[in-house]
């Protein structure tokens, strides 16, 4: 059963990995596909391309990092205030956030494009973080709010009685206890930014500024006569590796800590 689940989730990935290592001839059906020797030709191809794939990987990482940092920075205080200061205002903002999270983003493109044109935000990676953050914020706030709701307020009362100011309370109590929630929120935000396609497509036109999804689309559409399966697979593998790394790193935080045992048994 477990094996089946493993196959189910790993199968496509492994197939992609296998494909990326095959020579182009083997992919279009000449010769037995299984028997062909593995080669790094596809990787050389995409990494040497114009622009090289590592360039868009870097761009995506920059945008992802910026978006994640900005989102957490804004979401944490907002979630904290919404959770701890109950009242009609907090309720209203919470409801508005939920509505925003459910709003179809497609309807925003024209507006966003107009904004980019008016404020000259096109082809600017830092500016691309702004709409990404705006779109990631509602979910991030909801996630962090739920995590803060699980923190007993007495912990902060105790910290206040110990003479700890807000800054110290945040550093010594709040952040360590929220680390798992922050880590998972960060991963989701980064993932969203990493995968985002339509906004990047409309905002970025210079090839050396392309993010990964748009660069890959360009790769696929670069020739009318051939479909570069191999190159495409290689790009996919390269695009997944940073995410894999990120999750492995964040896992430490997610598993560690936990508020279990803070209050009662």
């Amino acid at each position: 059963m477990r094996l089946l689940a493993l196959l189910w989730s790993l199968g496509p990935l492994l197939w992609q990995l296998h494909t990326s290592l095959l020579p182009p001839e083997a992919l279009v059906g000449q010769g037995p596909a299984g028997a062909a020797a593995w080669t790094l030709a596809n990787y050389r191809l995409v990494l040497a391309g114009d622009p090289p794939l590592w360039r868009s990987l870097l761009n995506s990482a920059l945008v992802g990092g910026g978006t994640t940092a900005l989102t957490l920075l804004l979401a944490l205080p907002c979630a904290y205030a919404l959770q701890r200061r109950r009242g009609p205002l907090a309720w209203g903002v919470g409801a508005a956030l939920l509505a925003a999270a459910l709003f179809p983003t497609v309807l925003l493109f024209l507006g966003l494009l107009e904004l980019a044109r008016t404020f000259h935000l096109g082809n600017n990676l830092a500016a691309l973080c702004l709409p990404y953050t705006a779109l990631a914020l509602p979910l991030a706030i909801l996630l962090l709010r739920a995590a803060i709701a699980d923190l007993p307020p007495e912990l902060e009362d105790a910290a206040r009685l110990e003479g700890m100011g807000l800054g110290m309370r945040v550093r010594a109590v709040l952040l360590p206890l929220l680390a798992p929630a922050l880590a998972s929120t960060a991963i989701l935000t980064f993932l969203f930014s990493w995968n985002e396609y339509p906004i990047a497509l409309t905002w970025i036109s210079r090839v050396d500024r392309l993010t990964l999804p748009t660069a890959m689309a360009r790769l696929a559409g670069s020739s009318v006569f051939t479909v570069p399966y191999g190159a495409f697979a290689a790009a996919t593998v390269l695009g997944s590796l940073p995410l894999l790394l990120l999750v492995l790193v964040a896992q430490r935080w997610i598993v560690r800590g936990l508020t279990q045992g803070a209050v009662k048994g």
Partner: protein
Amino acid sequence: MSGLSLEQVSRRSGDRVLLEGLDLAVAPGECLALLGPSGCGKTTTLRLVAGLDPCSSGRILLNGEDITHRPAGERQVAMVFQSYALFPHLDVGENLALGLRSRGVPRPERDRRIAAVLELLELTPLVRRRPAQLSGGQRQRVALARALLRQPRIVLLDEPMSNLDARLREDLRPELRRLLCGGEPPVLYVTHDQQEAMGMADRIAVLQAGRLEQVGGVRELYTDPRTRFVADFLGRPAINWLPAEGGRVLGVRPEHLRPQAEGGIAARPLRREWWGHQPLVWLETPHGTLRMLLPAGGELLDYLMVGWRAENELWFDADGRRIDGAGPWRQQGRARAV
């Protein structure tokens, strides 16, 4: 005036009144229990004294100094929370060190003080454990250690033992008293358990619905309750109530009821339960069911007359206020046979 005093302290939240015009004074070293049902304002009082919530009106004085608007961190308050509120991500040693570190106590002194308090509470072997790895009693001791470390000017205890089992609670009471009471700081002890209040406190303040009902010594509250609520809330088994003319009510405690040869109320025993070594008998009478605590070894007939001494009567008016010299109680109309 030394000690802690609250003057006309009120707390409102929105249009809800949590506490209304509370006047209280606690002498240095005195342990005052705040007793009442949940929602009566006792925890609110504690949070106001700690500075965790602001007073809506009134003043809080400590040794004559107005601390009403002083931030919680500067009041030198030691508080033990019902949930203990230990930091789950820190081990016992770090939990204790955090407060001292935030106050800038230098490392050597910090280590010395922590070692001393660990020793005192027999926590030394547990110093590297996280709260999740401790039993309820051990967590309570860590919370206590944290409170003691603070060299407090006020000690506040918010149901510090309600998460422990009854036996442990009883054993810990003298321990708590030894560690916390009798020193310089006044002690406020919140509980809803009258047994605990009587065991811990020098005096008890009974609160209900945000108002102070009565404050006094343990025996005084029991023998001389000023309101019907206090008479009803203190004492187990609970007091008996008998209606009288003019909306007044008479309270008679179960241990003051006794069988008698003639006069009194006709009664038929319904059932008995053992209350420690004494039987508690439930009696059916024309005036409702009464509870009578019999002396050990007392025997009952199937049908009897019960009465009480006039000096044991507690009279209250229709508003629940005590009236003195209203007795003795007379049976209204003709007693029906039961």
